[in-house]
């Protein structure tokens, strides 16, 4: 459907238009939603539900095997692994949320402005996006974090900044048709108030892919955050984080391989679930 | 000649043996309606069989099924005999051998029916060599000859071109030339002119008519436009919901349509010339209660 048709018929391209045969809530999607909900819940409730303090060391009980007391055993400092994982969820969830908030807050107005204003602003801002995106993401994340100082919040703000061009470019290209000639023609022939109608109809369509993209970026953010933690640039040790704990455990791989396996599995599961939600959203919103 | 089906099939009293003979063809996707419910028709050398019918009536699927190119999820049954050989149920390798050198097909798509990143000459050569073993020089001769047969001017330029450098009409001619170099006896032409300008449509139709006569091809020409079919085809088949509902010599069908659906089709000709939209939006009457008609002299009760 061309923009002109959208405006004249008041119909939009099939966002949210579903046929009954498209099942959105497949078992996989339900499972991934449950995983994400669990991570968020554990992250929020860690102080209440964690069986131990994640920082309390016990030099007499290092590398303990899983037991009734320590379900996932203890680490090299005798700290409870399960409790550290739970607090790690807090860090992971908060970090991802910060990154998502930052790239949406920067990316959406940026994309809207570039797409709507066009001209030199569009041109310049897209070159800036090219520039940011041509620096390998993890390299830039490490560099910025190194410069502004490590710590969860700053590193995730940096990550949000690095991801914002992806959102901006996508949104821009989606609202670009509004400025196309055939729209302007119709708008003129129908009266200017249709400009508003155009935005009402085109914007929801433009935002659907952005939501899908946000999910996949959130999933990457969670992994990059863990990678920064792994490099010692995220959460400051000895505070618990999935990536940092994995790095510590790796040093003792031969003694306790399990301690390296488990945080990694948790990261994979959580990040994969978020990206699967993006896929489900894509199907649900009929994004190409 | 055996006749397993009671529905009319085309030209059962014809003298010569048909090259392709379809009987009781069914194509099923597992949906509530069969995409092709019961189609019988014959293709004869040097003749064009026109196939008319609205969108979704199973025209393309009939041709694709005959070629063995129906979608993989389709269940094809009935009988398809090519030069006396049964193809339904035959091994894929055997069916593949028939494609190209035995039967071939051209489509509504013009520019996109050719590989965008390969030069025309190479595409023709590929089709030729898939079917005919010959020397490089001989291949070139045949290709040039075929392009001249479809009245392409500036053959050497065309050979070096990529599809996007040619017009839709030129691409369709290249496709016809490709069908010719394959040396097929049967040509399915699925709305070959629908995507073309009106003037070009006419030229392409004339080419199809001429090569049919010169090369004694057996052609099945599918079109929305029964008016066009009236001009170029020898016999006509009208399809409705996967069935043949009227058949006979073109002139007879057009002059004395019996089936109400055919009448509706013919009545819509003046309105639809040049545009197919109105035709498709014809009132959704249900013609299934009417008996199929065979102009070979009698009315057949289904």
């Amino acid at each position, binding site marked *: 459907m061309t923009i002109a048709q959208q405006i004249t018929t008041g119909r939009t391209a099939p966002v949210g238009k579903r046929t009954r045969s498209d099942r959105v809530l497949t078992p996989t999607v339900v499972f991934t939603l449950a995983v994400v909900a669990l991570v968020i819940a554990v992250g929020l409730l860690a102080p209440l539900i964690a069986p131990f303090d994640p920082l309390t060391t016990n030099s007499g009980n290092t590398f303990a095997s899983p037991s009734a007391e320590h379900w996932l055993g203890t680490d090299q400092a005798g700290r409870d692994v399960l409790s550290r994982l739970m607090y790690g969820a807090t860090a992971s969830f908060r970090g991802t949320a910060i990154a998502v908030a930052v790239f949406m807050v920067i990316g959406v107005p940026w994309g809207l402005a570039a797409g709507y204003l066009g001209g030199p602003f569009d041109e*310049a801002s897209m*070159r*800036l996006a*090219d*520039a*940011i995106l*041509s*620096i*390998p993401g*993890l*390299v*830039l994340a*490490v*560099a*910025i*974090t*190194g*410069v*502004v100082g490590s710590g969860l919040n700053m590193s995730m703000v940096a990550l949000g900044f690095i991801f914002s061009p992806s959102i901006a470019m996508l949104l821009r290209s989606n609202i670009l048709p509004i400025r196309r000639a055939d729209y302007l023609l119709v708008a003129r022939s129908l009266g200017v108030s249709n400009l508003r109608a155009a935005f009402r109809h085109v914007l929801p369509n433009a935002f659907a892919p952005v939501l899908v993209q946000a999910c996949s970026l959130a999933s990457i953010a969670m*992994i990059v955050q*863990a*990678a920064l933690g*792994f*490099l010692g640039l995220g959460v400051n040790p000895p505070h618990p984080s999935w*990536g940092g704990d*994995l790095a510590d455990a*790796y040093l003792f*791989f*031969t003694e306790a391989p399990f301690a*390296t*396996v488990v945080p*990694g599995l948790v*990261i*994979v599961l959580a*990040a*994969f679930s978020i*990206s699967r939600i993006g896929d489900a959203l894509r199907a649900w919103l009929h994004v190409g | 000649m055996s006749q397993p089906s009671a529905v009319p099939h085309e030209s059962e009293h014809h003298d010569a043996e048909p090259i392709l003979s379809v009987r009781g063809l069914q194509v099923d996707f597992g949906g509530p309606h069969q995409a092709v419910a019961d189609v019988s028709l014959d293709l004869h050398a040097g003749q064009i069989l026109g196939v008319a019918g609205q969108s979704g009536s199973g025209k393309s699927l009939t041709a694709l099924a005959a*070629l063995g*190119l129906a979608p993989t999820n389709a269940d094809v049954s009935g009988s398809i005999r090519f030069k006396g050989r049964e193809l339904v149920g035959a091994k894929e390798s055997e069916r*593949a*051998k028939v*494609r*190209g050198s035995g039967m071939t097909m*051209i*489509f509504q798509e013009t520019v*996109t*029916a*050719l*590989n*965008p*990143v390969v030069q025309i000459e190479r595409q023709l050569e590929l*089709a030729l060599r*898939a*079917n005919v073993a010959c020397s490089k020089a001989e291949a070139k001769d045949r290709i040039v000859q075929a392009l001249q047969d479809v009245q392409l001017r500036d053959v050497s330029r065309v050979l070096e071109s990529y599809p996007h*450098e040619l017009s839709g009409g030129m691409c369709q001619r290249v*496709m016809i030339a*490709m*069908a010719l170099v*394959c040396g097929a006896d049967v040509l*399915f032409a699925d709305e070959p002119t629908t995507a073309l300008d009106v003037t070009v449509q006419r030229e392409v139709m004339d080419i199809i008519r001429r090569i049919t006569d010169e090369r004694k091809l057996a052609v099945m020409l599918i079109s929305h436009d029964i008016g066009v079919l009236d001009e170029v085809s020898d016999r006509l088949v009208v399809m409705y919901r996967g069935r043949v509902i009227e058949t006979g010599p073109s002139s007879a069908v057009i002059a004395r349509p019996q089936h109400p659906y055919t009448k509706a089709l013919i009545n819509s000709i003046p309105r639809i010339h040049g545009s197919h939209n109105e035709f498709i939006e014809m009132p959704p009457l249900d013609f299934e209660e009417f008996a199929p008609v065979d102009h070979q002299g009698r009315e057949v009760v289904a």
Partner: protein
Amino acid sequence: MMRMFLRRLRVVIPTLFLITLLSFMLRVIIPGGPADALLGGSDNPDTIKMINERYGLDRPVWEQYLSWIGGVLRGDFGISYATGLPVVDVIAPRLASTLEIVGFGMVVSLVLGMAIGMFAAIKRETRVGRFVFAASGLGVSVPVFWISTMCAGIFGAMLGLLPVNGYVPWFSGVSAHLQSITMPVLLIAVPPTAFTIRHVRSAMVAALDSPYVRAARAMGVSSARIHFDLALRNAVGPVITFIPFLASTLVGELVIIDVVFVLPGLGASIVDAVHFRDFAALQAIVLLLAVAVVMLSLIADLVLTAIDPRRRKAVS
């Protein structure tokens, strides 16, 4: 071709300029300034003053940028804060292992990715095809630091099959050299291979479902022939476009791989620069990597224009 090149330059030059600005900004956004950060918050004003003078940090920012960029254009990236040596001398020895790991990683990703991606496309309706596709989805989101620690732990530390510690130059023994890079190369290639599989598969599926494939089949061209031709001609363009992205992904992962396998590469340099607060080196590395990616895209575009007839026409 020339016009295409000039048109691309109109995009590339501003991008390069912005990249230099971004790299330079790393120095500007340091809270309290580089000298403060370098001294770890020392409050002795004389020391700060001395450092600022030594590295030219007391001049206005734009002047610093101009002198920095002037140096960069002459191949002079300044003096490393951490070692006092020219940054070039710090970076240059790091290139060998990086070029090798990233280069081989690229080759592995492309070869495996294209082969598996085409297989998955041709077999897309079979169980194997669907499984391969699903597995590539997992490969895309698996963190490299996790699989590389796991593999290093299992194959290195536990089984002792391959070394996990350090880079052996080839002149110290070819076999030892190859052993030292095997795991880094294979592991750095995991996500890029998965990305390539998905990319090639979708390009191939689009080609396989296209009208020209149906037409070619109707003309009797065999499936094997069609697949071969599509692989050779229609999949090449999408893969070339994809190479800069792959390079960028590989370099990002190099940071992890260098750390896990203790390799003397640029990835390790970045982490070192961060830990030693060597902002001059950090700027230089970020700049170099970004410029390399931009240049690679430019080359990819030119190659694509040279081989894709549609593009050739669009620009001539």
